[in-house]
Protein backbone atom coordinates (compact mmCIF):
# COMPACT_ATOMS: atom_id res chain seq x y z
CA UNK A 1 0.00 0.00 0.00
CA UNK A 2 1.21 3.51 -0.75
CA UNK A 3 2.36 5.56 2.17
CA UNK A 4 0.06 8.38 1.14
CA UNK A 5 -2.91 5.98 1.10
CA UNK A 6 -2.09 4.87 4.63
CA UNK A 7 -1.70 8.46 5.77
CA UNK A 8 -4.87 9.67 4.07
CA UNK A 9 -6.82 6.77 5.59
CA UNK A 10 -5.36 7.64 8.97
CA UNK A 11 -6.37 11.30 8.65
CA UNK A 12 -9.83 10.34 7.43
CA UNK A 13 -10.13 7.92 10.35
CA UNK A 14 -9.18 10.66 12.79
CA UNK A 15 -11.57 13.14 11.19
CA UNK A 16 -14.30 10.54 11.41
CA UNK A 17 -13.49 9.95 15.07
CA UNK A 18 -13.69 13.68 15.67
CA UNK A 19 -17.05 13.62 13.90
CA UNK A 20 -18.09 10.82 16.22
CA UNK A 21 -17.04 12.99 19.16
CA UNK A 22 -19.41 15.68 17.88
CA UNK A 23 -22.11 13.05 17.57
CA UNK A 24 -21.38 11.76 21.04
CA UNK A 25 -21.59 15.33 22.35
CA UNK A 26 -25.02 15.68 20.74
CA UNK A 27 -26.22 12.40 22.21
CA UNK A 28 -24.84 13.18 25.65
CA UNK A 29 -26.46 16.58 25.48
CA UNK A 30 -29.79 15.06 24.54
CA UNK A 31 -29.38 12.53 27.36
CA UNK A 32 -28.48 15.27 29.82
CA UNK A 33 -31.39 17.48 28.87
CA UNK A 34 -33.72 16.10 31.56
CA UNK A 35 -30.91 16.57 34.07
CA UNK A 36 -30.30 20.12 32.92
CA UNK A 37 -34.01 20.83 33.15
CA UNK A 38 -33.97 19.43 36.65
CA UNK A 39 -31.02 21.65 37.55
CA UNK A 40 -32.81 24.66 36.14
CA UNK A 41 -35.85 23.70 38.18
CA UNK A 42 -33.76 23.41 41.35
CA UNK A 43 -32.31 26.86 40.70
CA UNK A 44 -35.78 28.22 40.15
CA UNK A 45 -37.47 26.65 43.18
CA UNK A 46 -34.68 27.22 45.65
CA UNK A 47 -33.85 30.63 44.15
CA UNK A 48 -30.20 29.69 43.92
CA UNK A 49 -27.63 32.05 42.51
CA UNK A 50 -24.41 30.08 42.41
CA UNK A 51 -22.74 26.78 41.66
CA UNK A 52 -21.61 24.74 44.61
CA UNK A 53 -18.01 24.50 43.44
CA UNK A 54 -15.96 25.85 46.33
CA UNK A 55 -17.84 25.77 49.59
CA UNK A 56 -15.13 26.96 51.94
CA UNK A 57 -15.63 30.73 51.89
CA UNK A 58 -18.59 32.87 51.03
CA UNK A 59 -16.75 34.68 48.32
CA UNK A 60 -16.14 31.34 46.64
CA UNK A 61 -19.37 29.56 47.53
CA UNK A 62 -21.47 32.52 46.40
CA UNK A 63 -19.19 34.65 44.29
CA UNK A 64 -22.18 36.57 43.03
CA UNK A 65 -23.43 37.39 46.54
CA UNK A 66 -20.29 38.39 48.36
CA UNK A 67 -19.73 41.66 50.20
CA UNK A 68 -18.56 44.88 48.71
CA UNK A 69 -15.23 44.29 50.34
CA UNK A 70 -14.31 40.65 50.09
CA UNK A 71 -10.71 39.48 49.96
CA UNK A 72 -10.23 39.24 46.22
CA UNK A 73 -12.69 41.82 45.02
CA UNK A 74 -11.19 44.48 42.85
CA UNK A 75 -13.94 47.04 43.23
CA UNK A 76 -16.97 47.39 45.49
CA UNK A 77 -19.20 47.32 42.44
CA UNK A 78 -17.46 44.35 40.93
CA UNK A 79 -18.42 40.79 41.60
CA UNK A 80 -15.52 38.86 42.93
CA UNK A 81 -13.68 36.96 40.27
CA UNK A 82 -10.46 35.81 41.79
CA UNK A 83 -7.75 35.91 40.61
CA UNK A 84 -8.54 38.13 37.71
CA UNK A 85 -9.36 40.96 40.07
CA UNK A 86 -5.75 41.33 41.00
CA UNK A 87 -4.77 41.91 37.40
CA UNK A 88 -7.58 43.40 35.42
CA UNK A 89 -10.04 46.19 36.08
CA UNK A 90 -13.70 45.16 36.11
CA UNK A 91 -15.82 46.40 33.23
CA UNK A 92 -16.99 50.02 33.27
CA UNK A 93 -20.64 48.97 33.52
CA UNK A 94 -20.04 47.19 36.78
CA UNK A 95 -17.95 49.96 38.32
CA UNK A 96 -20.72 52.47 37.66
CA UNK A 97 -23.21 50.48 39.70
CA UNK A 98 -26.92 50.96 39.31
CA UNK A 99 -27.42 54.71 39.66
CA UNK A 100 -30.00 56.36 37.47
CA UNK A 101 -28.46 58.53 34.83
CA UNK A 102 -28.42 62.11 36.06
Amino acid at each position, binding site marked *: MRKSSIFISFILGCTLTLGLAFLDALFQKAGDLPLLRQ*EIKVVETLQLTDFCLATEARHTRHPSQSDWHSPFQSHPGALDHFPSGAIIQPPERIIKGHELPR
Partner: protein
Amino acid sequence: MSYLVNKQRNILDFALSSLLRRKGKNLALVAVYTLVVFALASVMFFAAALKKEASLVLSATPELIVQKMVAGRHDLIPMSYAEKIRKIRGVTAVEGRLWGYYYDPLVRANYTLLVNEKTALPEKTIAVGAGIARVRSAYRGSTMNFSSYEGKPMLFQVRGILSQESELLSADLILLSATDFRRLFGVPEDYATDLTVQVRNKKEVATVAAKIQQMLPDTRPILRDEIIRTYEAVFDWRAGIVIVVLLGALLAFLIFAWDKAAGLSAEERREIGILKAIGWETSDVLQLKFWEGLTVSLTAFLLGTIFAYVHVFLAAAPLFATVIKGWSILYPNFRLTPFLNVFQIAVLFFFTVVPYTVATIIPSWRAATIDPDQVMRT
Protein backbone atom coordinates in the same frame (compact mmCIF):
# COMPACT_ATOMS: atom_id res chain seq x y z
CA MET B 1 -7.63 17.45 -12.18
CA SER B 2 -6.30 13.93 -11.82
CA TYR B 3 -2.93 15.36 -12.82
CA LEU B 4 -3.01 17.68 -9.81
CA VAL B 5 -4.21 14.97 -7.44
CA ASN B 6 -1.59 12.52 -8.69
CA LYS B 7 1.12 15.10 -8.33
CA GLN B 8 0.15 16.07 -4.80
CA ARG B 9 -0.15 12.44 -3.76
CA ASN B 10 3.26 11.71 -5.23
CA ILE B 11 4.74 14.61 -3.32
CA LEU B 12 2.91 13.50 -0.17
CA ASP B 13 4.38 10.03 -0.64
CA PHE B 14 7.85 11.48 -0.72
CA ALA B 15 7.16 13.80 2.21
CA LEU B 16 6.15 10.78 4.29
CA SER B 17 9.20 8.78 3.21
CA SER B 18 11.29 11.78 4.06
CA LEU B 19 9.76 12.15 7.53
CA LEU B 20 10.07 8.42 8.20
CA ARG B 21 13.81 8.64 7.75
CA ARG B 22 14.06 10.36 11.11
CA LYS B 23 11.33 8.24 12.59
CA GLY B 24 12.25 8.55 16.26
CA LYS B 25 12.72 12.29 16.15
CA ASN B 26 9.58 12.98 14.19
CA LEU B 27 7.45 10.66 16.27
CA ALA B 28 8.70 12.41 19.40
CA LEU B 29 7.79 15.72 17.78
CA VAL B 30 4.29 14.52 16.93
CA ALA B 31 3.89 13.14 20.46
CA VAL B 32 4.89 16.41 22.16
CA TYR B 33 2.86 18.42 19.67
CA THR B 34 -0.15 16.20 20.34
CA LEU B 35 0.32 16.74 24.05
CA VAL B 36 0.32 20.51 23.60
CA VAL B 37 -2.84 20.43 21.47
CA PHE B 38 -4.37 18.04 23.99
CA ALA B 39 -3.67 20.39 26.90
CA LEU B 40 -4.99 23.45 25.07
CA ALA B 41 -8.05 21.66 23.76
CA SER B 42 -8.83 20.13 27.16
CA VAL B 43 -8.78 23.52 28.86
CA MET B 44 -10.82 25.04 26.08
CA PHE B 45 -13.47 22.32 26.02
CA PHE B 46 -13.70 22.25 29.77
CA ALA B 47 -14.04 25.99 30.27
CA ALA B 48 -16.50 26.30 27.40
CA ALA B 49 -18.68 23.49 28.75
CA LEU B 50 -18.69 25.01 32.24
CA LYS B 51 -19.54 28.44 30.88
CA LYS B 52 -22.33 27.05 28.78
CA GLU B 53 -23.67 25.07 31.71
CA ALA B 54 -23.53 28.16 33.93
CA SER B 55 -25.36 30.38 31.49
CA LEU B 56 -27.96 27.69 30.90
CA VAL B 57 -28.61 26.62 34.46
CA LEU B 58 -28.32 30.05 36.04
CA SER B 59 -30.75 31.48 33.53
CA ALA B 60 -33.37 30.50 36.10
CA THR B 61 -31.72 32.41 38.93
CA PRO B 62 -33.73 35.34 40.41
CA GLU B 63 -33.46 38.22 37.99
CA LEU B 64 -32.85 40.76 40.70
CA ILE B 65 -31.52 40.34 44.23
CA VAL B 66 -31.34 43.20 46.72
CA GLN B 67 -28.82 43.10 49.55
CA LYS B 68 -28.53 45.58 52.37
CA MET B 69 -25.05 46.90 52.95
CA VAL B 70 -23.76 48.12 56.32
CA ALA B 71 -20.31 49.66 56.31
CA GLY B 72 -19.61 47.92 53.06
CA ARG B 73 -20.64 44.53 54.26
CA HIS B 74 -23.66 42.40 53.50
CA ASP B 75 -26.21 42.68 56.33
CA LEU B 76 -29.71 41.46 57.13
CA ILE B 77 -32.37 43.41 55.26
CA PRO B 78 -35.55 44.63 57.03
CA MET B 79 -38.76 43.33 55.48
CA SER B 80 -40.01 46.93 55.40
CA TYR B 81 -37.66 47.41 52.43
CA ALA B 82 -39.67 44.77 50.58
CA GLU B 83 -42.79 46.89 50.96
CA LYS B 84 -41.05 49.94 49.51
CA ILE B 85 -39.66 47.99 46.57
CA ARG B 86 -43.05 46.41 45.83
CA LYS B 87 -44.41 49.90 45.16
CA ILE B 88 -42.00 50.52 42.29
CA ARG B 89 -43.75 50.33 38.92
CA GLY B 90 -43.09 47.11 37.09
CA VAL B 91 -42.28 45.05 40.14
CA THR B 92 -44.56 42.04 40.42
CA ALA B 93 -43.26 40.29 43.53
CA VAL B 94 -40.71 40.73 46.29
CA GLU B 95 -39.70 37.86 48.53
CA GLY B 96 -37.32 37.65 51.47
CA ARG B 97 -34.70 34.91 51.24
CA LEU B 98 -33.23 33.32 54.34
CA TRP B 99 -29.89 31.69 53.87
CA GLY B 100 -26.51 31.53 55.58
CA TYR B 101 -23.48 29.44 56.30
CA TYR B 102 -22.83 26.92 59.00
CA TYR B 103 -19.38 25.53 59.76
CA ASP B 104 -19.40 21.92 60.86
CA PRO B 105 -16.26 21.29 62.91
CA LEU B 106 -16.94 17.56 62.80
CA VAL B 107 -16.10 17.24 59.13
CA ARG B 108 -14.50 20.68 58.78
CA ALA B 109 -16.88 21.65 56.04
CA ASN B 110 -19.11 24.64 55.40
CA TYR B 111 -22.79 24.06 54.76
CA THR B 112 -25.19 26.46 53.13
CA LEU B 113 -28.42 26.64 55.08
CA LEU B 114 -31.40 27.74 53.09
CA VAL B 115 -35.08 28.26 53.75
CA ASN B 116 -37.46 27.36 50.99
CA GLU B 117 -41.14 28.03 51.54
CA LYS B 118 -42.15 25.80 48.68
CA THR B 119 -40.47 22.76 50.19
CA ALA B 120 -42.59 23.26 53.36
CA LEU B 121 -40.46 21.25 55.78
CA PRO B 122 -41.97 20.70 59.23
CA GLU B 123 -40.02 22.08 62.16
CA LYS B 124 -37.02 20.09 63.39
CA THR B 125 -36.59 18.44 60.02
CA ILE B 126 -34.10 19.12 57.24
CA ALA B 127 -33.30 18.03 53.72
CA VAL B 128 -29.59 17.75 52.95
CA GLY B 129 -27.54 17.88 49.80
CA ALA B 130 -25.95 14.73 48.46
CA GLY B 131 -22.47 15.98 49.36
CA ILE B 132 -23.41 16.41 53.02
CA ALA B 133 -25.15 13.05 53.04
CA ARG B 134 -21.86 11.61 51.84
CA VAL B 135 -19.50 13.22 54.35
CA ARG B 136 -21.89 12.82 57.27
CA SER B 137 -23.20 9.39 56.20
CA ALA B 138 -26.69 10.82 56.56
CA TYR B 139 -29.77 8.98 55.36
CA ARG B 140 -33.53 9.47 55.59
CA GLY B 141 -34.42 9.25 59.25
CA SER B 142 -30.95 9.89 60.64
CA THR B 143 -30.37 12.88 62.86
CA MET B 144 -27.91 15.79 62.72
CA ASN B 145 -26.95 18.00 65.58
CA PHE B 146 -26.37 21.74 65.17
CA SER B 147 -25.23 24.36 67.62
CA SER B 148 -27.42 27.47 67.72
CA TYR B 149 -26.14 31.06 67.88
CA GLU B 150 -26.58 30.85 71.65
CA GLY B 151 -24.55 27.64 71.80
CA LYS B 152 -27.59 25.46 72.47
CA PRO B 153 -27.68 22.09 70.67
CA MET B 154 -30.48 21.68 68.12
CA LEU B 155 -31.34 18.24 66.83
CA PHE B 156 -32.76 17.78 63.32
CA GLN B 157 -34.13 14.77 61.61
CA VAL B 158 -33.15 14.23 57.97
CA ARG B 159 -36.38 14.10 55.95
CA GLY B 160 -34.80 13.83 52.56
CA ILE B 161 -31.62 13.88 50.52
CA LEU B 162 -31.52 16.33 47.61
CA SER B 163 -31.16 14.64 44.25
CA GLN B 164 -27.65 13.62 43.29
CA GLU B 165 -28.21 14.86 39.79
CA SER B 166 -28.30 18.48 40.88
CA GLU B 167 -25.18 18.15 43.01
CA LEU B 168 -23.39 20.86 41.06
CA LEU B 169 -25.83 23.26 42.72
CA SER B 170 -26.95 21.57 45.88
CA ALA B 171 -24.16 19.36 47.28
CA ASP B 172 -23.71 21.51 50.40
CA LEU B 173 -27.28 22.67 50.90
CA ILE B 174 -29.39 22.10 53.97
CA LEU B 175 -33.01 23.05 53.63
CA LEU B 176 -34.94 23.85 56.77
CA SER B 177 -38.03 25.73 57.93
CA ALA B 178 -37.99 29.50 58.44
CA THR B 179 -38.73 29.12 62.17
CA ASP B 180 -35.78 26.78 62.65
CA PHE B 181 -33.52 29.07 60.62
CA ARG B 182 -34.36 32.08 62.76
CA ARG B 183 -33.98 30.03 65.91
CA LEU B 184 -30.62 28.60 64.84
CA PHE B 185 -29.05 31.89 63.79
CA GLY B 186 -31.02 34.40 65.87
CA VAL B 187 -32.39 36.26 62.85
CA PRO B 188 -35.26 38.56 63.99
CA GLU B 189 -38.74 37.91 62.62
CA ASP B 190 -38.93 41.02 60.42
CA TYR B 191 -35.56 40.56 58.76
CA ALA B 192 -34.37 38.48 55.80
CA THR B 193 -30.94 37.69 54.37
CA ASP B 194 -31.79 39.42 51.14
CA LEU B 195 -34.71 40.08 48.82
CA THR B 196 -35.52 38.65 45.41
CA VAL B 197 -37.45 40.93 43.11
CA GLN B 198 -39.53 39.90 40.11
CA VAL B 199 -40.03 42.40 37.35
CA ARG B 200 -42.77 42.17 34.74
CA ASN B 201 -40.75 43.37 31.78
CA LYS B 202 -37.27 41.88 31.50
CA LYS B 203 -36.01 45.02 29.79
CA GLU B 204 -36.86 47.10 32.83
CA VAL B 205 -34.74 45.17 35.30
CA ALA B 206 -31.86 47.64 35.10
CA THR B 207 -34.19 50.61 35.55
CA VAL B 208 -35.85 48.99 38.54
CA ALA B 209 -32.38 48.29 40.00
CA ALA B 210 -31.46 51.92 39.56
CA LYS B 211 -34.69 53.04 41.21
CA ILE B 212 -34.08 50.74 44.18
CA GLN B 213 -30.57 52.11 44.51
CA GLN B 214 -31.92 55.65 44.54
CA MET B 215 -34.72 54.94 46.94
CA LEU B 216 -32.70 52.75 49.31
CA PRO B 217 -29.13 53.99 49.09
CA ASP B 218 -27.85 51.40 51.56
CA THR B 219 -28.77 48.53 49.28
CA ARG B 220 -27.00 46.81 46.45
CA PRO B 221 -28.96 45.21 43.60
CA ILE B 222 -27.44 42.21 41.83
CA LEU B 223 -28.73 41.38 38.35
CA ARG B 224 -29.00 37.90 36.88
CA ASP B 225 -26.92 39.12 34.00
CA GLU B 226 -24.09 39.99 36.32
CA ILE B 227 -24.21 36.58 37.96
CA ILE B 228 -23.91 34.79 34.65
CA ARG B 229 -21.14 37.11 33.56
CA THR B 230 -19.33 36.49 36.82
CA TYR B 231 -19.28 32.80 36.07
CA GLU B 232 -18.05 33.37 32.57
CA ALA B 233 -15.24 35.49 33.95
CA VAL B 234 -14.43 32.94 36.65
CA PHE B 235 -14.11 30.06 34.23
CA ASP B 236 -12.32 32.12 31.63
CA TRP B 237 -9.82 33.16 34.21
CA ARG B 238 -9.39 29.70 35.58
CA ALA B 239 -8.74 28.44 32.06
CA GLY B 240 -6.39 31.37 31.66
CA ILE B 241 -4.42 30.30 34.72
CA VAL B 242 -3.99 26.80 33.35
CA ILE B 243 -2.80 28.28 30.07
CA VAL B 244 -0.37 30.56 31.90
CA VAL B 245 0.95 27.58 33.85
CA LEU B 246 1.32 25.71 30.59
CA LEU B 247 2.89 28.71 28.91
CA GLY B 248 6.42 27.69 29.83
CA ALA B 249 5.91 24.27 28.31
CA LEU B 250 4.20 25.85 25.32
CA LEU B 251 7.08 28.21 24.66
CA ALA B 252 9.57 25.39 25.04
CA PHE B 253 7.63 23.44 22.47
CA LEU B 254 7.49 26.46 20.22
CA ILE B 255 11.26 26.78 20.28
CA PHE B 256 11.67 23.07 19.68
CA ALA B 257 9.17 23.02 16.85
CA TRP B 258 10.60 26.16 15.33
CA ASP B 259 14.07 24.71 15.41
CA LYS B 260 12.81 21.47 13.93
CA ALA B 261 10.64 23.05 11.30
CA ALA B 262 12.62 26.12 10.43
CA GLY B 263 16.23 25.08 10.80
CA LEU B 264 17.30 23.53 7.55
CA SER B 265 20.29 21.29 8.01
CA ALA B 266 23.06 21.21 5.44
CA GLU B 267 21.77 17.76 4.53
CA GLU B 268 18.28 19.08 3.81
CA ARG B 269 19.72 21.92 1.74
CA ARG B 270 21.69 19.40 -0.29
CA GLU B 271 18.55 17.36 -0.86
CA ILE B 272 16.61 20.35 -2.05
CA GLY B 273 19.49 20.97 -4.48
CA ILE B 274 19.27 17.41 -5.77
CA LEU B 275 15.51 17.64 -6.22
CA LYS B 276 15.95 20.83 -8.21
CA ALA B 277 18.70 19.26 -10.29
CA ILE B 278 16.56 16.28 -11.24
CA GLY B 279 13.79 18.55 -12.43
CA TRP B 280 11.72 19.70 -9.47
CA GLU B 281 10.51 23.28 -9.59
CA THR B 282 10.81 25.69 -6.69
CA SER B 283 7.06 25.39 -6.16
CA ASP B 284 7.30 21.59 -6.08
CA VAL B 285 9.90 21.79 -3.33
CA LEU B 286 7.70 24.19 -1.37
CA GLN B 287 4.74 21.87 -1.79
CA LEU B 288 6.89 19.08 -0.41
CA LYS B 289 7.68 21.18 2.64
CA PHE B 290 4.00 22.11 2.97
CA TRP B 291 3.07 18.43 3.11
CA GLU B 292 5.82 17.70 5.60
CA GLY B 293 4.54 20.46 7.90
CA LEU B 294 0.90 19.55 7.43
CA THR B 295 1.52 15.86 8.07
CA VAL B 296 3.03 16.58 11.47
CA SER B 297 0.67 19.34 12.54
CA LEU B 298 -2.56 17.82 11.25
CA THR B 299 -1.78 14.50 12.92
CA ALA B 300 -1.04 16.26 16.20
CA PHE B 301 -4.13 18.45 15.91
CA LEU B 302 -6.53 15.59 15.23
CA LEU B 303 -5.07 13.25 17.84
CA GLY B 304 -4.79 16.01 20.45
CA THR B 305 -8.37 17.14 19.91
CA ILE B 306 -9.75 13.60 20.07
CA PHE B 307 -7.77 12.80 23.21
CA ALA B 308 -8.98 16.05 24.77
CA TYR B 309 -12.58 15.15 24.07
CA VAL B 310 -12.11 11.74 25.65
CA HIS B 311 -10.28 13.31 28.59
CA VAL B 312 -12.81 16.02 29.31
CA PHE B 313 -16.15 14.49 28.42
CA LEU B 314 -15.63 10.75 28.73
CA ALA B 315 -13.11 10.65 31.59
CA ALA B 316 -14.27 13.80 33.46
CA ALA B 317 -11.00 15.73 33.00
CA PRO B 318 -8.87 14.16 35.74
CA LEU B 319 -5.90 16.37 34.84
CA PHE B 320 -7.35 19.87 35.05
CA ALA B 321 -10.62 19.48 36.86
CA THR B 322 -9.52 20.84 40.23
CA VAL B 323 -7.92 23.95 38.78
CA ILE B 324 -10.83 24.86 36.62
CA LYS B 325 -13.74 23.77 38.82
CA GLY B 326 -12.26 24.80 42.13
CA TRP B 327 -11.83 22.70 45.23
CA SER B 328 -13.53 22.12 48.53
CA ILE B 329 -14.15 19.49 51.16
CA LEU B 330 -17.74 19.15 50.06
CA TYR B 331 -16.92 18.69 46.45
CA PRO B 332 -19.87 17.89 44.21
CA ASN B 333 -19.82 14.87 41.96
CA PHE B 334 -20.97 15.97 38.59
CA ARG B 335 -20.52 15.12 34.97
CA LEU B 336 -20.17 17.91 32.44
CA THR B 337 -22.53 18.04 29.52
CA PRO B 338 -20.38 18.37 26.41
CA PHE B 339 -20.93 21.49 24.37
CA LEU B 340 -18.78 21.31 21.26
CA ASN B 341 -18.95 23.69 18.40
CA VAL B 342 -17.23 24.07 15.07
CA PHE B 343 -15.92 27.50 16.01
CA GLN B 344 -13.87 26.08 18.90
CA ILE B 345 -12.37 23.47 16.63
CA ALA B 346 -11.61 26.07 13.98
CA VAL B 347 -9.84 28.32 16.50
CA LEU B 348 -7.79 25.38 17.69
CA PHE B 349 -6.93 24.47 14.10
CA PHE B 350 -5.75 27.97 13.25
CA PHE B 351 -3.63 28.22 16.35
CA THR B 352 -1.96 24.84 15.99
CA VAL B 353 -1.83 23.65 12.40
CA VAL B 354 -1.32 26.88 10.51
CA PRO B 355 1.71 28.33 12.36
CA TYR B 356 3.66 25.09 12.20
CA THR B 357 2.97 24.54 8.54
CA VAL B 358 3.96 28.09 7.70
CA ALA B 359 7.10 27.75 9.83
CA THR B 360 8.06 24.73 7.77
CA ILE B 361 7.60 26.39 4.42
CA ILE B 362 9.13 29.83 4.94
CA PRO B 363 12.74 28.79 5.65
CA SER B 364 12.71 26.40 2.70
CA TRP B 365 11.90 29.27 0.43
CA ARG B 366 15.47 30.46 0.12
CA ALA B 367 16.87 26.97 -0.14
CA ALA B 368 14.36 26.14 -2.82
CA THR B 369 15.42 29.03 -5.02
CA ILE B 370 19.07 27.97 -5.26
CA ASP B 371 20.43 27.22 -8.71
CA PRO B 372 20.20 23.55 -9.53
CA ASP B 373 23.72 23.54 -10.97
CA GLN B 374 25.19 23.87 -7.49
CA VAL B 375 24.68 20.16 -7.15
CA MET B 376 26.93 19.58 -10.14
CA ARG B 377 29.71 21.52 -8.50
CA THR B 378 29.79 19.46 -5.31
